[in-house]
């Protein structure tokens, strides 16, 4: 039976949500083809949570435990997973396209001289067994239909927030494997971790998004968000200039929204941005340029200066959020 491996990322015992999205998608493909889904889970103390991955689609889980594996670290993760692939020879290997997922997959693909598709937004396995993915490129409005033609396992990283995790199945069978850590001094060592909090915008119901039109001042964006109980997102340039964290920019290489409502202010609508708002139910945008491309991607497009419109809008909505 063909085996689809899914790298399940965790940090201090908490699953990375997008890994569960990949598990569910893998299970749907596996069910259609009669394949098996194996979750690969590395961490400090993960055997007690490993079985629960079955609910999201894993038939079985290989759990590897060691204190050094508590959070992702490229060297031991690559070596342990590489060793398991070497030994068990899976047909497919999928990971979520998080920073860590790309870091791991990019290195493993070369180790096994195999094909790796990047941040696919759709995924399937053809009759002949080749992995077919839809890879967005050139800013996200052009999609390449890509096929793996060489190497085992066939690999892909999967874009975040594109598939929904479903809790449909049952506990998975768990195999605990002893970690083989190279006894030599590791070449990369973690010194310190600093976390400032994180909002997963792909799960937000309402989002207010600020772009370069704000001039980098998100005060009004934040105030509107507070009033309508929404989260705050940005377009990539604002993250790139350091106004907002990298975790909250919307677009093909950032977050894909699945919100009911997105209010988008001062964003012109470059291709890589609008690919991140495809799945939003209602898009309202405000832009002073009546020709801004964002109009094509909006349900309601207000023309005007956001610094004049937003304060008035905020006043009118104050105290009315549901």
């Amino acid at each position: 039976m063909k085996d689809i491996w899914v790298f399940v990322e965790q940090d201090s015992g908490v699953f990375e949500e997008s890994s569960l999205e990949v598990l569910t998608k893998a299970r749907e493909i596996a069910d259609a083809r009669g394949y098996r889904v194996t979750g690969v889970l590395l961490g400090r103390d993960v055997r007690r949570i490993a079985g629960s991955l079955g609910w999201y689609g894993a038939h079985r889980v290989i759990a590897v435990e060691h204190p050094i594996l508590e959070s992702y670290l490229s060297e031991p993760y690559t070596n342990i997973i590489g060793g398991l692939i070497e030994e068990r020879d899976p047909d497919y290997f999928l990971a979520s396209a998080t920073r860590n997922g790309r870091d791991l997959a990019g290195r493993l693909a070369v180790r096994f001289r195999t094909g790796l598709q990047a941040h696919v937004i759709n995924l399937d396995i053809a009759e002949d067994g080749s992995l077919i993915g839809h890879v967005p490129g050139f800013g996200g409005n052009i999609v390449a239909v890509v096929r793996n033609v060489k190497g085992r396992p066939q690999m892909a990283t999967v874009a975040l927030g594109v598939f929904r995790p479903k809790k449909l199945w049952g506990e998975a069978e768990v195999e605990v494997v002893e970690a083989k850590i190279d006894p030599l001094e590791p070449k990369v060592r973690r010194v310190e971790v600093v976390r400032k909090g994180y909002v997963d915008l792909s799960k937000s119901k309402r989002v207010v998004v600020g772009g370069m039109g704000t001039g980098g001042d998100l005060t009004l964006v934040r105030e509107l968000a507070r009033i309508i109980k929404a989260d705050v997102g940005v377009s990539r340039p604002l993250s790139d200039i350091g106004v907002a964290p990298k975790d909250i920019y919307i677009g093909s290489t950032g977050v894909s929204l699945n919100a009911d409502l997105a209010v988008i202010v001062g964003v012109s609508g470059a291709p890589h941005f609008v690919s991140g708002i495809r799945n939003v139910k209602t898009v309202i945008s405000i832009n002073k340029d009546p020709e801004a491309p964002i109009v094509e991607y909006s349900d309601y497009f207000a023309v005007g200066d956001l610094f004049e419109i937003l304060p008035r809008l905020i006043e009118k909505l104050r105290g009315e959020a549901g």
Partner: protein
Amino acid sequence: MSLRNIIVTLKVTPKPEEIRFDPVTKTIDRSKATNEINPADKNALEMALQLRDRYGGRVIVVSMGPPFWEPFLKLAVAMGADDAVLISDRALAGSDTLPTSLTLARAIQKIGDYDIILAGEESSDGGTGQVPPGIAEWLGIPHVTYVTSIDIIETGKARVKRTIKGGYEILEVDMPFLASIELGCNTPRFPDFRRKRWAEREFKLKVWSTADLGLNPEEVGFKGSATTVDTLVELKPPERLKRIITGAPEEVAEELARIIRELLR
């Protein structure tokens, strides 16, 4: 303590918003798009120049692409790079990330004597981010991705800051190592005018072929790739109402408030 070579991989990309897609021939028209040094690679180059200014060494840029990329490599030299290598060979056309990382790794080995390899976190066209860890694997050296700063703490050891979900981590890594550099983590310098003139008129960059790198044609290009593109499709925008609201700010705000109230209900 002085660093040995600091090698920067660099690519030239068309501005994504200027690329057109022809739905009939299913091809991408880059001819009207402005080309530029891939923005994240420029940050990698700036990081390399800062490291050289602090710790010594030579900054060498290496790129795999067509001959028309030469002026962009000269621009990198004008910014301060000490040398530049262009790997240019028709056999490389169609390379996916596997042969691309192999080719760059071979060139880095040929340059040799390196302590640090820097690459942009990803390109603005392909955007896979796979090539940097791939190069490190071919070279058999450690890598760290999404790096925003590098300090050398003692001979052969660096301390790097890596962006993680919701924050950052500090890692210590042994040299030689590869780091992929986060877009926008520094402000790339402008080229010095006199150096720019020198780079354009007198500087001779090295041009290497696959044969110079000991690569056989089966290993690179379409033949050496492990993925293939079946077809290209343009994503149609989802159906939207596209209702345009104009008027004085007060009227626009009133109408938006009405719509939002309705949606929040």
